[in-house]
Structure formats: C-alpha cells, structure tokens
C-alpha cells in the first residue's frame, strides 16, 4: 500500500519535472544567450559556443567608457531613459490619483463618462494610436522633444492607472469621508490627510507600472525622438541594427544593462504588481 502510494507520488513528480524542463529551457534560452554574449569577446561570441569559454567583463568597460561609435552617447541616453520614465511616473501618479479621487470619493459629475473614456483608451492597441499621435505631436511642434514622449506615455499609462486606483478607492470605507466631513474638512484636506496615506500600496504599484511602461517603450520613442542626444536606450539599441557589421556583443551588453533596472524594480515590487494586475483582470 505505502509503496504503491510512493510510486504514484514519484510518477506524479516525474510528470511535473517533464513539464518543467521544457518550460525552463523555453524561458531561459534567449536570456542565457543574451548573458553569454555580454560576457564574451566578439570572436568567442560568434563561434557558437554554448557556454562561456573565456568569460570577461571587458564589454561592460567598453560600454561604460563609451568606446564605440554606437555608444558615444550611452550615458546621456541612459539618463534620457531615466528622466522620461521618472517624469512619466510622476505625472501619471498625479493625474490618475486626482481623477480616481474625484470619481470615487467626490462622485464628480461626469466621472463615469471619464472612466469610460479612460477604459476606451486602455483597450485601443497602443501601436494604432502611434501613427495619429506622431502626426499631432508634429502639429503641436513637440516632435524631437522629450516632452512629446513623456506626454504620449502619460496619455497611454493614465487610463489603466485611473482604473486600478478607482477600484482601490472604492474599497476604502465611506465612514472615513463622513468623519472628515463632520470635522469640516475640505476636499483637499480629505485628499491629503485621509486618502493619500491609505492609498500608498496602490500608488506604489501604479508608479512602478508607469515607470516600467515608459522605460520599456520602443515604438513611441522611435517615432517621436530622432536626435542621437535625445534618444532613449531602446531606440539606440534598435539603431545598432542599421549596420551590417554591428558589434553584437556590445549590443547585448548594453541590452543587458538596460534590462536590469526594470527587472530589479519588477522583482522588488512583485507582490504589488501581480496582485494589482490580476485583481483587475480576474474581476470579470
């Protein structure tokens, strides 16, 4: 009896492992390949080795010292990415928190309508909005300005932010507002002293969401920015492809450096992110 049970448990475990191996390989191979290139010199990287024969960190030195003409503006472009992501995060938090507070707590007239506008924007594929956005940014005279990208990212990130923050605000007890009103608080006092402190976890999730969205954005950055000195890192990475003799090992190294901050942020705030995202979708 016990042995039969053991065999069944082992069989069950073996089945899980048989699923796990392809899943792990599928997930990790492209990332491993990226890492492998980042720690290999050009000749070893191009020789098709499956593991690093002569691991070296010299590529990182080349990137950090900007010692290749593709990398002349590496630090500037890194800073551009940081600046655009941070500004997007800050503006989205400001705009979306105001809107969610107005809709959920102040019951602003037209709040439902604004919520629907936001949802509509959220569901429209971002790539479809890119073409009209590119034209209008031109009309506004914002092309090639980093503000064009920041504002575009704010327009794209705010809808989801408003939606999540509104869901979270709806869960706060109504008695809090009533108590504040009894004490004669103004709406802004209610906002600052009661609402904001209670919303901190959702604000962290949304700030992270907006920052990652802007940091990862390729299409809009590629359309709206063109000067080498105003580009963000992903566009600079894409530009490597223009040349036939691209230094792929440096491209992969830069790509790895670019991928590390969002991965670190994601894992640091994983709890907030996953519960925030899934709570939204599972609602149905």
């Amino acid at each position, binding site marked *: 009896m016990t042995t039969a049970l053991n065999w069944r448990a082992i069989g069950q475990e073996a089945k899980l492992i048989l*699923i*796990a191996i392809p899943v*792990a390989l599928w*997930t*990790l191979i*492209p*990332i491993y*390949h*990226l890492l492998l*290139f980042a720690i290999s010199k050009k000749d070893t990287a191009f*020789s*098709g080795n*499956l593991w690093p024969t002569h691991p070296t960190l010299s590529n990182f030195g080349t990137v950090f010292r900007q010692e290749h003409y593709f990398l002349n503006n590496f630090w500037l472009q890194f800073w551009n990415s940081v600046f655009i992501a941070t500004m997007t995060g800050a503006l989205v938090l400001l*705009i979306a928190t105001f809107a969610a507070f*107005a*809709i959920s707590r102040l019951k*602003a*007239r*037209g709040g439902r309508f*604004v919520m*629907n*506008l*936001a949802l509509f*924007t959220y569901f429209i*594929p*971002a*790539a*479809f909005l*890119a073409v*009209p*956005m590119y*034209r*209008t940014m031109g009309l506004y005279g914002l092309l090639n300005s980093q503000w064009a990208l920041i*504002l575009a990212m704010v*327009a794209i990130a*705010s809808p989801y932010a408003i*939606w999540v923050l509104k869901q979270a605000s709806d869960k706060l007890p109504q*008695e*809090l507002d*009533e108590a504040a009103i*009894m*004490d*004669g*608080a103004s709406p802004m006092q209610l906002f600052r*002293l009661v609402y904001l402190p209670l919303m901190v976890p959702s604000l962290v999730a949304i700030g992270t969401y907006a920052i990652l969205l802007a940091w*990862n954005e*390729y299409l809009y950055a590629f*359309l709206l920015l063109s000067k080498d000195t105003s580009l963000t890192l*992903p566009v600079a*990475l*894409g530009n490597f492809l223009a040349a036939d003799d691209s230094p792929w090992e440096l*491209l*992969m190294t830069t790509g*790895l450096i*670019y991928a590390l901050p*969002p991965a670190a942020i994601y894992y640091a705030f994983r709890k907030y992110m996953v519960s925030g*995202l899934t709570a*939204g979708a*599972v609602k*149905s």
Partner: protein
Amino acid sequence: MTAATLPGAETLPKASPDRRMQSWRNWGLLLLAPYVIVFALFVAYPVGYALWVAHHPQSYVDLASDPIFFRSLWNTLLFIVIGVNLKMVVALYLSGFFANTRPWIRWLSVLFILPWAVPSIPTILSFRFMLNPEWGVINQLIFKLTFEDGPNWLNNPTIALSLSVLVHIWKSLPFWTLILLAGRLAIPSDLYEAASVDGANNWQKFRFVTWPSMATLYLTCLLLSMIWTLGDFNSVYLLTGGGPADLTHVLATLGIRYIRLDRVDLAMATIVTALPFVLPLVYIMMKRFSK
C-alpha cells in the same frame, strides 16, 4: 464617532450642506480636468485628426492597390487566430502546472516571469542573433551536428512570421499564465475534493470543475489578448523588420512603413480598416470592465 480629527479643520467656517456639496462637486471637476485635458489633446484630437485624414476614398483605393496591404491583413489574421489561441491554450495548461504547490515550482514561476519582466528589445535582438544564418548559435549547432548549413530562417516569409509569433508568445505567455493561475486559485478546493470522491480523473476534473469556473475569465483574456496583439509592433518589427520583401508585415508595422514612405494618409487608412474588428472587441471589453 471619534475618528479623524484633522489638524486645522476646526478653524474652518462651517458651510451649509448645500454649499458644501456644491464646492465638493467643483473640486471633483477640477481634479478630473488634468486627465480630461490629456485625453483631449493626446487621444481625442489625434483620433479625430486620423479619421479626418483618412476620410478620402482615394486613400483606400491606393491601399487596396498595394499588395503588401492584403498580405499584412492575412499575416495579422494568422497572428491573431493562430498565435493568440495557441498562447492562451498553453497559458491555460501551464496555469494548471503552476497551481501545484511545491517549493521548486514556486522558484520556477519566479524565473518563468522573466520574459515579461524584462524589456522586449534586448531579448528580441537576442532571438534575432540566435537565428543569424552564419553566426547564430542555432545554425552553428546544425552545422556541427549535420555538417550542412542550416536554413536562412528570417529569409523565408512563412518561417519568419512563425518565429515572430513565437517571440510574441515567449514575451506575453507569463502574463496570461499568471492571470489564469489567479483564476484557478480562486476555485474552491472542496469542489476538487468532491470530484475526487466521485472518482473523477484529471481530465474530468478539468472538464467539469475547472473549465466551468474559468470559461468567462478565459474568454475575457482571449479577447483582450487579441486586441493587444493587434498592437504588437516589436515582435515583428525587431525580428524581421517586415521583411523579407515586406512579406511579414502586420497592420501595426504597416502603418509605420507608410509613415516611412511619407504616405501618412495610407498609414491612417490602415488603422481605419482595422477598426471594424477592433471597436466591437473594445466595446465588449468596456462592458465587462466597467461593471
């Protein structure tokens, strides 16, 4: 009620309830204003402008006379119908795998999220170099094993498009698996226990317990993923660049191609032709989400 005595609040003049309601309403409008302005300037105006630019019938005649357009429509359809369904079925299956509570599976799930947690550019470029016909690791392996040259992967439109679909699945599979996993974990475990008592096998448990509880969620995810996949520019553009010979474009990259050719009207018209498909889906989603 003793809660929340606000500093400074007691010094405020007590307004009459009516006037206070009015002032709260005004504050509400004021706080909505920033988003409404952003929406008007960067969503409503561009969309209206696009519709205006694309209203001329000649644009559609030109569009229809471009063979690349129909090829792109077909590619987009393949991407959505085959790619998204394949992705969601795998995500549904894997959500069952990750629902097993074992420490090592929890570790694997942390790794499994990586494709979604890292930006798509570096990993797509990594795919691209793996597929390089001369220097890529795949063809070098093929050569070492068979002493023959491997195929020029991205030079064949069918293979190139299939690989774009795979890259898309690689990137977004973790997200949908997580969502479906959350849906699975919300199913009360006594339903499974009852099914076990009745002697149900794994397939029957899925068929009669899991699926009925998850069908709505699955359908929502499927539709949402279809809309969003329509906007997947990176998986195609960065892997194939739309090539060879512009044969792997999808609608999302075709619009950008027309901008490059300086035909903004065609770019706008491309988007408009997708609207009959996009808008009903968006409407269904809005109904589901604004409950």
